[in-house]
């Protein structure tokens, strides 16, 4: 069953909350963080970012720093935050490609450690392995678009802004990614 994303949308409250955040209201930052951070974190995890929580924290520090220059509605704010987060990941990957680090990231250590209910844990690990296997057969751009669409809950237009492509190109990447997933499943390479 598709796990419904908790509705943290701020809707008509957004302009008021944004103004309060710009003015330094701590409560407003709680609201903005709660509306965007969970989706950003899961997207970063699915992308295989070594330390997604750190990236989220760094992303919001940048958001605080540059919030006075932001103009737009809630969708624009989400798009902006995802853009910052994705750019941080790209920068991090570039740095790591220059200076490889062998230290095991927190995500791998957490996966190896026991986490509560063994049955749930086993099912989750199985699902994660299957999903990662399917995603591994996609191109980087196809994977990026599908993760932003499914986990980030962004529209085609918002994804286009985040990845810096035209909407038509994003739609094509999405369609080809879905077709590749279907092929993987029908070929029996992955049993879902």
């Amino acid at each position, binding site marked *: 069953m598709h796990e419904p994303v908790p509705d943290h949308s701020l809707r008509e409250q957004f302009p008021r909350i944004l103004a309060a955040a710009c*003015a*330094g209201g701590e409560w*407003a930052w709680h609201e903005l963080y709660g509306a965007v951070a969970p989706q950003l974190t*899961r997207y970063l995890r699915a992308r295989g970012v070594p330390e997604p*929580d750190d990236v989220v924290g760094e992303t919001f520090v940048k958001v605080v720093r540059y919030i006075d220059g932001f103009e737009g509605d809630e969708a624009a704010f989400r798009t902006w935050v995802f853009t910052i987060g994705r750019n941080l990941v790209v920068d991090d990957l570039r740095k790591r490609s220059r200076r490889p680090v062998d230290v095991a990231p927190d995500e791998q250590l957490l996966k190896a450690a026991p986490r509560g209910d063994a049955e749930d844990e086993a099912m989750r690990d199985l699902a994660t392995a299957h999903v990662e296997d399917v995603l591994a057969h996609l191109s980087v751009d196809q994977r990026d678009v599908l993760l932003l669409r499914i986990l980030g809950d962004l529209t085609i237009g918002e994804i286009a802004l985040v990845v810096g492509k035209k909407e038509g190109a994003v739609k094509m990447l999405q369609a080809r990614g879905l077709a590749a997933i*279907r092929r993987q499943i029908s070929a029996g390479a992955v049993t879902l």
Partner: protein
Amino acid sequence: MTPFDVPPDEMGIDPEIANEELEALLAGQGRDKNLDLTRFVDDLSTAFPASAPAAAAHLAAIANEAQLLADKGDPVARPASNAVAPVPQASRPPKRWRNTVKDKKARILIKVAAPVVALFAVLGIMGSAGALPRTLQHLTSHAAGFVGLDLPSGDDEGNDSTADDQGDENDQGDVKDATDQGDQNDQGDSTGSTDTSDQGDQNDQGESTSSDSTDQGDQNDQGDSTGSTDTSDQGDQNDQGDSTSSDSSDQGDQNDQGDSTGGSSGGSSENDQGDGGSSQDNQGDSSGDSGSGSSDSGSGSGSGDNQD
């Protein structure tokens, strides 16, 4: 691959249909039509749940960053912070603004003060050198006197005996020349006690006990001795061997050699050798030339002209 570089199994892909299918699936519709895709989306959501485990740490970092920016005077610290809930307002402008205001005042002060200081420095230096125009020099000297500085006032020019001795090169032995200007290689003036207004002598050697007055423009004048009463001798060049002459108003002699006992007052002689006056091309004259022409040919009572 097809000639269009599209994989054969992607030929029938319609991005619009795929987008509508996925949108419906994410909205919880049409799940039974796309079972494979539905299961994949479910597994993806299960594998990566929406959570922010480090929310507390992140919010603390956000609050810290906002506070830092508030201290620096960024917009988050401005009075609009009571948009929703009242928060303590800053009673003074933000720090950055305060610094900017302070900097602006300092910048204006520097812009005004720097030219004034530079002007005083230039006036002071030029005033101490006495190089200012008379009026300005007087004012500067007067102003400097208030603070105890002693600058030349511009009124005391020409009072000392060796003042205004300008432009001498290799001037040796002048004792009492007053207003001696432009001497070059002037050697041996000794006890030439009353040279006054001697201007432009070059290679003047050996004058002794002479009393040239208003002697201007002599060049290579050698051996004047006891030519005691030259007055207004101007423009001599290569004048050698004058002795005991009493030229007066002798102007413009060139290559004048061997004058002796000439008592004339001619002017503008050229290549005059041996005459006592101021004739031209006159060589070997002795005693008695008294002409004043420019091409002297034995005028007057000259005797012994060799080349007239």
